[in-house]
């Protein structure tokens, strides 16, 4: 696997009249092509800041981010970002919601509707094409949000606790769904979560961040001895609880320091 994304000694500080808050301090790691990377950390450790930096919504105070060896500002690579909630717009039906990104980027042509229909069909939303968000279940809404992001053909998908607003049962189902979609579309993904089980079950590698200001505490490769891996099946792998305990200790340790 070749290296797709490199985070190189990133630091970021927020400024307000009350003072300055360092959010990230000298963070470095890389993501391989096609990899699913999980990032866990205590709340307020700068996880979301990290994604905003990668997505180019914020400019780092120092350090650089490279995609395929080029600085993100000049690489022209597309980065898809999924927020914590689906944020489907109430006044648009499913079809008009999933095309929102294409509309903004002026990529929506008559030819794109075939592709859109295809995706809607594959992920069970085609019959809800003309439904409004309030008529969809939590899982359907999350899938629609993912399709909205995928239609922009991103090279990297950033997932910012995308399941945190769902109830536990839906959450397990949607995690399986989304994971499956990402694998099928062969996307590289970075998942941020504070749920340790979720990180282990979905990721190939997990990065543990420390308390604020966030630094990389440890990088753990996840190797599970099961075939036909899905996030749900992964939870019953024999190594699962060892990884859980390992990450738990890392997090616990950083909480204690506080």
């Amino acid at each position, binding site marked *: 696997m070749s290296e797709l994304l490199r985070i190189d000694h990133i630091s970021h500080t927020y400024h307000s009249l009350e003072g300055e808050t360092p959010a990230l301090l000298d963070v470095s790691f890389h993501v391989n092509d096609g990899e699913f990377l999980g990032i866990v950390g205590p709340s307020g450790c700068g996880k979301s800041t990290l994604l905003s930096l990668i*997505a180019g*919504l914020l400019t780092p105070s120092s350090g650089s981010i490279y995609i395929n060896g080029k600085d993100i500002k000049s690489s022209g690579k*597309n980065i*898809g*970002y999924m*927020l*914590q*909630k689906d*944020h489907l*717009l*109430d*006044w648009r039906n499913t079809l008009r919601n999933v095309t*929102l*990104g294409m*509309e*903004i*980027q002026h990529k929506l042509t008559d030819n794109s509707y075939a592709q859109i229909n295809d995706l809607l069909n594959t992920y069970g939303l085609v019959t809800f094409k003309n439904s*409004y968000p309030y008529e969809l279940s939590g899982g359907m809404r999350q899938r629609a949000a993912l399709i*909205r*992001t995928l239609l*922009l053909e991103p090279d990297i998908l950033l997932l910012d606790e995308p399941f945190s607003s769902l109830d536990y049962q839906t959450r397990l189902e949607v995690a399986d769904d989304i994971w499956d979609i990402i694998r099928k579309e062969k996307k590289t993904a970075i998942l941020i979560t504070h749920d340790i089980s979720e990180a282990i079950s979905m990721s190939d590698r997990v990065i543990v961040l420390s308390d604020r200001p966030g630094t990389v505490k440890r990088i753990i490769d996840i190797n599970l001895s099961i075939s036909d891996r899905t996030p749900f099946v992964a939870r019953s792998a024999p190594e699962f609880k060892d990884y859980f305990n390992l990450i738990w200790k890392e997090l616990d340790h950083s909480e204690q320091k506080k």
Partner: protein
Amino acid sequence: MSRKNKKISSSGLNLSAAQKAFVRKHVVQQRRIRIFQIIILIGFIAFWEISTHIGIVDSFIFSSPSGVIKTMIDMSQGGELFYHIGITLLETLISFAIVNIVGIFVAVILWWNHSISKVLEPYLIVLNSLPKSALAPLFIVWLGNNMKTIIVAAVSVAIFGTIITMYSNFKAVEQDKIKLIYTLGGNKKDVLFKVVLPSNIPSMISLMKVNIGLSLVGVIIGEFLAAKSGLGYLIIYGSQVFKLSWVIMSIVILCIVATGLYKILTYFEKKYSR
């Protein structure tokens, strides 16, 4: 209201007895409310008519329902009445359109540019709290005794409130929805047209419901001071020459016009909020 009741009761063919009783009770209660509303209206008009006939109140000062209706028929035969109603309606609709278009446009500018909004904030607050009828005499001197004055007076009544309310509604749009547009590669213009404006259509319509009333108030104030036509003019002129039937008739028509305009907007509101 009555149509809705019919729908409830007729759809209940295989309902339980308790449900039927519940629905019937609801229908009876709705009907009772309507009956009392009508009784109050009829009672008031009858009492007014009778008391002017037997001399409890002076019909010269208080007019009478029959007098009002007679005036209405007299004035509508020459088309004079419709002319006055038309003028008032025209002025109201022009002011209403100006208030909404300019108000929303200025609110967009304030939303777009944080510095402008900060600089203008104290001025908007002062202008909004100022009683606008105090400005009307100034407008007459500046603009003359004509329709321009009336429209400017009416616009001044509602415009500042519209700007302030709309601006704070724009600012109240969920931050994450704005972030969503940026994550999809959009810019500030996309935020405005894809999220801020469409999400505020319901609040725009409810603001319009307030503005239609305020525009009418402004137009009547304007017509009191500077007009040769319109319902406000009829009211002032009628009171000066002691034709109280004119005054009361104009007020009754104003009630109908105000309710009618409000109902039109309520219709649009229902259409837009599924």
